[in-house]
């Protein structure tokens, strides 16, 4: 067992699953010889060859659309979209096809595909390289959405995603790719889709987060008796764990990287307000980015929710 970063953990998951299952193929821009712009597919082209690791034309509709066709014909495609900001070119394919093929054909044709994409701010990239629009996908019925928060989770979650019989949007926080190392077993293990995990146990306040915000939330939680929940999956999501924690603590703060309005935090808050309101001591609070167009890199740090902002909200929650 070695301490590896998230890129390495993902790479390990892909390599192992490709060794195990010849149906798994990878396609996307620069995933082959270049090993992906973040190097997540590094070495796979050399190992598995160009038929299973396909460098494609610059063609998001085509890539995802073709993966849908492949997945319906017995392959298990793992698509890489180079940055989440470029996934909208494939949005129609995702929403009108991947998400619906099982329903439309009453299960005769299915889409066991995974769409991996780096997402989120904090890497000082060019425009359109930093969005986090996970809520859009969580609203689409028929899609699963998973978001790892570190190397260990990343490997287990990706293996579940590849083996899942339905389409999974797999969002990789780019800021975390090389930020943290964790011990990740060489053996295969899975982390089930749809389940959250307790990142920390506490009794006074429930903090809910996912992806790259989990790290900041954990830091902000220092000094509070906080139950910290890492959602890991946004669709389906583990409302049960959230509700039972809130019933215990009576306080909830949800931390998301995306702008506030209609983000996934709103769904979590609405669910709490619907199913656990009797247990609440005060308001359900959200920490989110501002409702503005994501600024270029110079102002990125002001835009993203930081540890201070999260702390302030926890303090606000504790005042009730």
């Amino acid at each position, binding site marked *: 067992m070695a301490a590896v970063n998230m890129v390495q953990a993902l790479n390990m998951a892909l390599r192992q699953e490709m060794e195990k299952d010849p149906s798994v193929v990878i396609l996307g821009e620069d995933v082959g010889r270049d090993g992906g712009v973040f190097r997540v597919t590094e070495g796979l082209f050399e190992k598995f060859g160009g038929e299973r690791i396909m460098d494609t034309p610059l063609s998001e*509709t085509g890539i995802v659309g073709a993966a849908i066709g*492949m997945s319906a*014909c017995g392959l298990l495609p793992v698509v890489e979209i180079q940055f989440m900001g470029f996934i909208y070119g494939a949005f129609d394919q995702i929403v009108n096809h991947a998400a619906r*093929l099982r329903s439309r054909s009453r299960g005769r044709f299915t889409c066991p595909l995974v769409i991996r994409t780096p997402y989120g701010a904090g890497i000082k990239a060019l425009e359109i390289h930093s969005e986090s629009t996970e809520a859009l996908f969580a609203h689409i019925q028929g899609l699963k959405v998973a978001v790892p928060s570190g190397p260990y989770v990343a490997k287990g979650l990706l293996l579940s995603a590849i083996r899942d019989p339905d389409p999974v949007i797999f969002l990789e926080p780019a800021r975390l790719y090389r930020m943290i190392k964790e011990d990740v077993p060489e053996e295969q293990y899975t982390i089930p889709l*749809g389940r959250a995990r307790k990142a920390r146990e506490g009794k006074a306040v429930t903090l809910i987060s996912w992806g790259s915000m989990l790290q900041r939330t954990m830091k902000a939680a220092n000094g509070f008796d906080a139950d910290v929940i890492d959602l890991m999956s946004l669709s*389906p999501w583990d409302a049960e764990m959230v509700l039972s924690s809130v019933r215990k603590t009576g306080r909830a703060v949800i931390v998301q990287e995306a702008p506030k309005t209609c983000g996934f935090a709103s769904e979590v808050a609405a669910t709490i307000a619907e199913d656990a309101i009797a247990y609440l001591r005060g308001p359900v609070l959200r920490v989110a980015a501002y409702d503005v167009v994501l600024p270029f890199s110079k102002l990125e740090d002001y835009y993203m929710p930081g540890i201070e902002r999260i702390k302030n909200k926890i303090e606000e929650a504790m005042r009730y």
Partner: protein
Amino acid sequence: MPEKSIASFDVKRLEILDEEGNADKTLMPGLSGGEIKHIYEMMLLSRAFDERALQLQREGRLGTYASIRGQEAAQVASAFAAEKTDWIFPSFRETGVQITMGYPLYMLFQYWSGDERGMKCPGGLNVFPVCVPVGTHLPHAAGAAMAMKIRGEKKAALAYFGDGATSKGDFHEAFNLAGVFRAPAVFICQNNQWAISVPLSRQTAAGTLAQKALAYGFTGLQVDGNDVFAVYKAAKEAIEKAKSGGGPSFIECFTYRLSDHTTADDSTRYRPAQEVEEWKGRDPVKRLRLYMEKEGLLDGEFQKQTEEQAEKAIDEAYHKMEEIGPPPANDMFAYTFEKPSPGEAQQMREFLG
């Protein structure tokens, strides 16, 4: 160094059977009398189904329906060139293709009545569900074809679409991928010259649709889409080429939509009546009948029998659909995921009350 020519292209059109039912023997594809009869039967069945569907829609017993009238040759002859196990990616106007592939008629009625069980393609066939967003199924065909190649299966992927679909980015990306990966895909466009009210001249400034394949490094051929033999020959060759590693092909079937766009449309608002009349004269069914009569493949008895069989099959199919009845309401919870999520399961319990 003057301006020099670095590539030149020639776009071809194939015609075999003329409007009087005379075939160019030198170009005739190898079809037995029995096969020609079968094609004709499928054309009559398709037309009869189409007429019945229109009638049922008028009576409020089916939902919006898209007629294929005038396009039977393009659909039936091309599908007849495929094998049962080839993958078929239809648009919403492909009744003739589905029927020729052997898709159960009662399921087509289910589909058009708003019941998704009609799109559960039976085992042994690989006919994808109807694609409603225009042109967006072409990447699926490209991907399926890529998969065939990767898996070493000798199958082709046939995608059907209209002239309007050629304007979508999905068309472009699918063609490009198929070209780059030399995938065994056959793209079959029924250029019926209208996309609802938009005429071909508003759809593209290109003189032919066939020439669009040049952008992707493979060939496009225009065929007389009302000529079963030209369509069959082009499709057969393209499928064989695909299966023998020759890569994708594009076939433009030049034809005409004789009906309204769908039962929700009134084409007299935008289409000159005379144009429709002219194209009625080019009826693909009649043209084949004339040929068969001349060749002694068809007489009054055969015609009558075929018509009767078609009506009978359609009656049975409609009754079967009616007998099966509408889907149970909780069916809507069963196919979002393989296993319902906890939220979905809870909502179903609520729904069932």
